[in-house]
């Protein structure tokens, strides 16, 4: 099997899985876990966009 993802989809999928684990392991209550997981995911996706714009600026 040879799965070829784009850079963006690979980074977002990475963020999904890492956020689930971070949320569950770093907080105690269910509500906090969901909130922290969503926060981590938002940071991952935000970081992807930020890195994308930085690379665009460097390429100019």
């Amino acid at each position, binding site marked *: 099997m040879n*799965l070829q993802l784009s*850079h963006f989809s*690979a980074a977002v999928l*990475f963020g999904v*899985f*890492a956020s*689930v*684990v971070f949320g569950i392991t770093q907080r*105690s209550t269910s509500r906090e876990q969901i909130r922290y997981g969503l926060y981590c995911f938002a940071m991952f996706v935000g970081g992807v966009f930020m890195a994308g714009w930085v690379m665009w600026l460097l390429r100019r």
Partner: protein
Amino acid sequence: MANPSTTKETVPPQPLTAMSVVAPAIGWLIPGAGHLVQKRWIRGLLLMGSIVIMFLLGLAMQGRVYRPNGGDILDILGFVGDVGAGGLYIVTRALDLGQGAIAHATADYGTKYIIVAGLLNFISAADAYHIAVGKKP
């Protein structure tokens, strides 16, 4: 002026129970199982799903699985990350998968997926230990 050493909280020693040894061990071997044996069903299944899918996606993306005798320091660090996946790593090595013939631009993501799946499983096993000793509900 308060002496910092006197105001510091003393943490009582945690009792060493069978579960505090079994849960992280089985959690390392089978991702999420450390939570499942303690009846944290949803958490265990979510952890298992995330780590196993991440590892398998890494293999599907032609990611490289590091060997213990890589020689290079970065290879050794890669091995430490990979071995965190426990049973997944053992099965992958037994089936001789993860040769890592990088044939396209995003194949390196596969290697990173496999390493991070192992590292996340270390965190998961540590969390199972904290639940077993009562530090976490």
